[in-house]
């Protein structure tokens, strides 16, 4: 069984616990995927253009006679921070599931996740309902973030959606 786990920097423990349920499956191949969202960089470039500056990250490749411009120190710093953060997140997750295959991608997280799931031939996708920036657990329509929503709608395989425990919020209105 091939299980692809989607990391967001806040869910290593949650995914580690979920994987324990599948430990009996043989053979089991686990993939850990982290996608660096490129939207913030694109947003920053749009703002640069508004201030009549050239974008930091060229959207179009330069025409053949033009050499590829050397990245600015700030651009390098951004890339390094993103790379370091992605590596740290993947490393942290390996402490819960040693031997997993790690994958780093860049792009729209929701689209990369479903594409990687198809390319990697995943039998199951594990995704958390949303990044856990706060401890309070919520139920309701806003408890599933846009990435999880997209993955559930577009996944090429079964999806295991991990929601935090929220029994204390029950019973709900009948």
């Amino acid at each position: 069984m091939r299980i692809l786990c989607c990391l967001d920097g806040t869910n290593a423990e949650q995914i580690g616990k979920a994987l324990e349920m599948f430990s009996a499956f043989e053979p089991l191949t686990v993939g850990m995927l982290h996608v660096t969202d490129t939207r913030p960089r694109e947003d920053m470039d749009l703002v640069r253009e508004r201030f009549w500056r050239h974008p930091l990250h060229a959207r179009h490749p330069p025409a053949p006679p033009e050499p590829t411009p050397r990245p600015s120190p700030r651009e390098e710093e951004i890339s390094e921070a993103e790379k370091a953060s992605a590596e740290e997140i993947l490393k942290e997750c390996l402490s819960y599931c040693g031997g997993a295959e790690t994958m780093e991608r860049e792009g729209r997280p929701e689209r990369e996740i479903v594409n990687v799931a198809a390319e990697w031939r995943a039998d199951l996708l594990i995704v958390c309902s949303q990044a856990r920036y706060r401890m309070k657990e919520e139920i309701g329509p806003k408890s599933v973030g846009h990435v999880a929503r997209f993955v559930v709608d577009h996944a090429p395989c079964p999806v295991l959606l991990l929601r935090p425990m929220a029994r204390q919020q029950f019973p709900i209105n009948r």
Partner: protein
Amino acid sequence: MLWFFHLPQLWTALLSSLIALATLAGIMIRPFRWNEARVAMSGAGLLLVLGLISPKDALFTLLRDWNTFLFFLGMMALSALAETAGLFDWLGVQAARLAGESARRLFLNVFLLGTFISMLFSNDATALILTPIVYVLVTKLRLPALPYLFACTFIADSASFLLPVSNPINIIILSHHPLKLSAFLRLLLLPSVVVIAINVGVFFFLYRRQLAGSFDVERLSSPREVIKHKAFFRYTCCVLAVVAPAYVAAAAVQFPLSVVAVAGALLLLAGAFYWRSASLRQAGKAISWSIFGFIAGMFIVVRAVHETGLTTKFGNLLLHLSRGSSFGAVMVGTAGAALGTNLINNVPMAVLMNSALASIQSASPGVRQGFIAATMFGCDLGPNLTTVGSLATVLWLLILRHRNVDVSGLDYFKVGVVVTPLMLFAGAFTMWLLI
């Protein structure tokens, strides 16, 4: 060519207006991947070749606005050299350390830091230098990036009318329509505070879910790490400690602010040479030289339109719509400038309004001051509505999305549409109370 022909006034007016419209459209569409400077200079060049503006008039127009050109140069150099010294990185790390591991407090600190940087270095520095620094910071801290990026982008404009130097648009307008510092502060300081408070309040509400967490302070770099050269950093702080009050003093006595900005930049450049922190080439690369071509082109194009009397008519229309009252002046000035800035971008709109405001000289002092302050307010804050430049850009993004191309930038628009009209109205209303 038209030097040799005598064209009726109507034709020259029509031709000048058409070239001006084509220039504005070209700036937004950027045909043949031309940059904005090339488009603006082409428009100006065409007007000169066709004899719709005389070379003497064009030269006089550019020389008259030396303060604007010099201010852009000084402002960009000052920010770039302060960045080289590591000042903004250091301030970012300090803002995070003072947040005490709370994502909310860091959010507030980003707003405060953005306000401070916009006030002293202009909105360019906040939007272009602080934003990537904050992005690196929140990436390291594993916090959601978008709320913090949006905070930087929006506060850059929301805090850009605290002082005349907080936005180069203010300099463009004040060079033609001077306001005493006391009048500037009387009319714009309190609206600034109101606008910033609304910006912070609405953003805290919009992003309350993402900001509820905390971060691990151990992931931060130490403040010492981000300073590349300690002596140059200290020197930069000292120079800026002199430049800040010098800005206020210069504005108070109506001394050209560009001279202060350039003097500050030269002092920093001397320090950078002394401590070998930056070369002239590096400093030159940090300045966007094409901006000068763009502004020069726009000044000439608008001057030609002014000669036709069209901008005067536009000014008279604004005056008529305001019904000669200070309330009307503030509301019409704000709405006109804000709408225009979203249609054709803020620099062209400010230059256009400069020309239009020439026709309000005969109005009462209250109305005149109301129009000038409201124009700065609308041109400074208006861009927050579309954020990505103009409605043309938003439409283009919408078309792309319609074609199933995933685009960013529309999120800015969604937030801008919610918060900007509120800020514009509240700020304009406060301004009216103060006239």
